């Protein structure tokens, strides 16, 4: 079963010098924390804050490529947790075909809010990009991460 997730925030863990992205289920019951690297955390926070840089950052470039090629992101699926690493898949529609691109989870995340910030009325996730996580991942406790 797939659960639709929203990005609820980005946290800094000073003891480990790490960044943690917090995903929350639509019903606000399920929480999925994902540790990300610093450049990725930067990319995500710029997107969350809706900051546009004068020159395109790497994820802006990716979005521009997707737009230029008239491809469209369907959703991002956090599909697996293996050896403490989350795995995600980007599902794209391009020229009538669905293409899936494997990636580590943190990249996917930073693409989403940028798309949301581009849409005029970001009422809910249906306007933007959908993030799903499998139910099994949801049941993880803090110690598992």
């Amino acid at each position, binding site marked *: 079963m797939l659960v639709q997730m929203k990005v609820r925030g980005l946290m800094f863990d000073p003891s480990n010098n790490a960044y943690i992205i917090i995903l929350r289920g639509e019903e606000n019951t399920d929480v999925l924390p994902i540790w990300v690297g*610093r*450049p*990725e955390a*930067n*990319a995500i926070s710029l997107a969350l804050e809706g900051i546009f840089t004068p*020159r*395109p*950052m*790497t*994820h802006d*470039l*990716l979005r*521009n*490529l*997707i737009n*230029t*090629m*008239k*491809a469209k992101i369907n959703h991002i699926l956090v599909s697996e947790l293996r050896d403490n*690493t989350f*795995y995600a898949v980007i599902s*794209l529609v*391009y*020229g*009538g*075909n669905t*293409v*899936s*691109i*494997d*990636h*580590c989870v943190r*990249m996917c995340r930073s693409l989403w809010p940028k798309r949301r910030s581009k849409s005029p009325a970001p009422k809910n996730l249906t306007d933007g990009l959908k993030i799903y996580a499998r139910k099994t991942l949801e049941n993880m406790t803090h110690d598992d991460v």
Partner: protein
Amino acid sequence: MNIPLKVDAIISDPNTNAQIVILKDEQNLELLPIWVGMAEGNAIRFALEGIASPRPLTHDLLKNFLNHLKVPLEKVLIHSMNGSTYFASLHLVQPPPEKKETSDKKTSTHPSEESEEITVDARPSDAIALALRMGVPIYVTDEVLHKKGSENLDAWLEKLKPTDFGPYDT
């Protein structure tokens, strides 16, 4: 006229902690130093040293994205500079979407005759990181190459000490 360049080295500026990509032309006559951010510098360094990360990093994702969509990257071009900022573009060959050519909704698999060259604006750092990963040439317009101050870099390199490079930082 566009001049092909090779990535010669990537070094750290000890004062600002910035990364500098040194591009050279084929005759080793012209130098083009480009200041890049830490993350992009590391992305270029990984590609230069042939380090493969267990999971795809952002520029690997860009590469995978282009490969999956079968959109070949032809070259990257550093085409202009404004103040101290360089501007680059990715030159891609996009086969026209076949779906639109046929009247029905089924996608035909045969390749179309006409492909379209598209350019996408990018920072030179991203363009170089991607070019190294995809093995495509990096070009610069001679206008940009002659505008930059390689004399300043020569002077700076003269004063550079081995200790200035700092530890290898990933």
